[in-house]
């Protein structure tokens, strides 16, 4: 009798779900073949565990207790009245509810010339050649478990194209809402192509209207054209029970400018992955984020950056505030191939531990094969500075308020890099709410 590998309940659930759902997922036979290949890879290797280097500190196999079935259609009325996470009249809201793009809930009035927005599900059904081509990713990305699960289960998403030289004044806000009980899974893929010299701001919010253990898997692929400027900001605001996997794939063209910010404020288990690559020279990019954790929550930020062209500059800054028995992971790998001379990269991660049991793991790595480069990394981890705290206390400020001021100041260094004022303010508001709840 052949030995069958022991499957965890989550792996068993996946093995049962995929065959049941695969034919009802959108796409032509070609798409199904892509899904099958992706799922086959996951099934073969199982969920990654701590002996798999990229998942060393986030043992998905041990942490993923279950895998709920795909979400049904959302209750539109509830989604419609939900308070927006970001209060911005300027932003164009594009709503993805329970994994499905809902144009009727979205603001599509007067789309700027040069901007097109359409449904990924429709493109998959139509077998759109460009979209199918855009699903192809290099092996290192395609075989990543969160990515492969997204490929296998993706139900919809947005295909956004910004034409060359188009300047899109209104930020695009991709609103991901999970609604309903019991807990369900969603997998959404966005494909964003920004033409030469174009300019756009992309905001993503990921949230749930119900405090249940939703699983969300949001993947965004952005191609930043030559000389284009893209500002991407994600607010992950899921309930404490949720599982949140996000992946960002960014190809940054010559002379382009790209910024991405991730705020990981929710979920019991969160992993934000970034796969970025400079594909043309003289480009610049900023990778930043903040994580706030309490209870027994776990959040992982994993950045793979290939500084693949000459004279590109990047800045990486990730900050985490960790309370109770929570655990934050930051893994950042920057690779500089031998032809990428004049590379300038500076990666910094800092963790503020608010309790004895809180844990921060930082794994910065530089792989440098070029000789004329400036690359640095730093990692710090510590508690609130006693001297600063004493100074504030000695001026009459109560301890919890003083701690909140210092925590906000710590995170501010990263948050203040957010250029979009509405998102900046929305995030500060959330952080203040978190701090208030902590002091209560």
């Amino acid at each position, binding site marked *: 009798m052949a030995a069958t590998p022991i499957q965890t309940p989550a792996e068993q659930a996946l093995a049962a779900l995929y065959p049941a759902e695969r034919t009802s997922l959108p796409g032509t036979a070609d798409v199904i073949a892509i899904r099958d290949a992706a799922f086959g890879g996951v099934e073969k290797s199982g969920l990654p565990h701590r002996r798999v280097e990229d998942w060393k500190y986030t043992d998905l196999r041990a942490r993923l207790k279950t895998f709920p079935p795909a979400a049904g259609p959302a209750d539109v009325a509830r989604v419609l009245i939900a308070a927006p996470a970001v209060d911005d009249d300027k932003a164009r809201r594009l709503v993805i509810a329970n994994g499905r793009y809902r144009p009727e809930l979205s603001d599509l009035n007067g789309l700027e010339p040069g901007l097109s927005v359409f449904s990924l599900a429709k493109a998959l059904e139509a077998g759109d050649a460009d979209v199918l081509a855009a699903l192809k990713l290099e092996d290192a990305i395609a075989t990543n478990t969160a990515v492969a699960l997204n490929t296998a289960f993706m139900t919809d998403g947005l295909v956004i194209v910004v034409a060359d030289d188009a300047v899109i004044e209104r930020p695009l806000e991709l609103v991901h809402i999970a609604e309903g009980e019991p807990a369900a899974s969603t997998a959404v893929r966005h494909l964003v192509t920004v033409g030469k010299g174009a300019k756009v701001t992309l905001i993503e919010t990921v949230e749930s209207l119900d405090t249940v253990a939703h699983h969300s898997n949001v993947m965004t692929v952005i191609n930043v054209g030559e000389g284009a400027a893209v500002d991407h900001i994600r607010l992950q605001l899921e309930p404490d029970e949720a599982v949140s996997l996000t992946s960002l794939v960014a190809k940054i063209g010559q002379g382009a400018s790209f910024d991405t910010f991730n705020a990981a404020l929710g979920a019991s288990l969160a992993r934000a992955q970034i796969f970025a690559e400079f594909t043309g020279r003289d480009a610049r990019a900023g990778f930043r984020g903040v994580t706030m954790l309490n209870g027994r929550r776990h959040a992982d930020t994993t950045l793979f950056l290939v500084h693949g062209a000459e004279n590109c500059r990047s800045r990486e800054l990730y900050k985490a505030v960790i309370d109770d028995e929570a655990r934050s992971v930051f893994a950042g790998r920057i690779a500089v191939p031998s032809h990428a001379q004049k590379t300038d990269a500076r990666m910094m991660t800092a963790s503020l531990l608010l309790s004895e049991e809180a844990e921060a793991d930082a794994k910065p790595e530089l792989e440098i094969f070029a000789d004329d480069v400036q690359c640095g990394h730093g990692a710090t981890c510590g508690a609130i500075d*006693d*001297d*600063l705290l*004493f*100074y*504030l*206390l*000695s*001026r*009459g*400020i*109560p*301890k919890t*308020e*003083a701690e909140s*001021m*210092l925590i*906000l*100041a*710590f995170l*501010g*260094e990263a948050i203040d890099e957010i250029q979009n004022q509405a998102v900046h303010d929305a995030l500060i508001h959330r952080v203040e709410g978190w701090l208030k709840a902590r002091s209560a």
Partner: protein
Amino acid sequence: MLEIKNLHARVGGREILKGLTLTVNPGEVHAIMGPNGAGKSTLSYILAGKDDYEVTDGEVLLNGQSILDLAPNERSVAGLFLAFQYPIEIPGVATMTFLKAALNAHRKAKGDKELTTPEFMKLVKGVAEKLNITSEHHLGHAEAAGQRRLLRRREEARRDHADGAVAAGDLHPR
């Protein structure tokens, strides 16, 4: 009135204060002098309530009330605080945020209404004029040096008009 009676204290397992007694009456200014390592800073920090200093004997009364069980902020609003000659600069905390929080903590303790931001800014403008800090950038988006200067002026002003409260001012708190 501040009364220090037979104060014994330890830090890092070493006894530093070995029975200090001192009474400071309202309106009096006292300078505590002594060689390096005599325990001047230690005394200041103990009075202000810094962690890590263990009082092993004696008592400290402010206007008849023992303060040794009070947190530093409670002592501060009761009127006892440590004035730093070189105010600490707190990276990322705007001076105005800090000053407003401190002022409102004191107002709250006295039962006064806390000031809103516009009310506070008006007050700051008035005080700044009195102190001849007129330049805009010292008040609004001040650079670090300007902020420090403003803080120092404010510390000095507090020391000068300590409102009958006793300021435990250490000349070199480092």
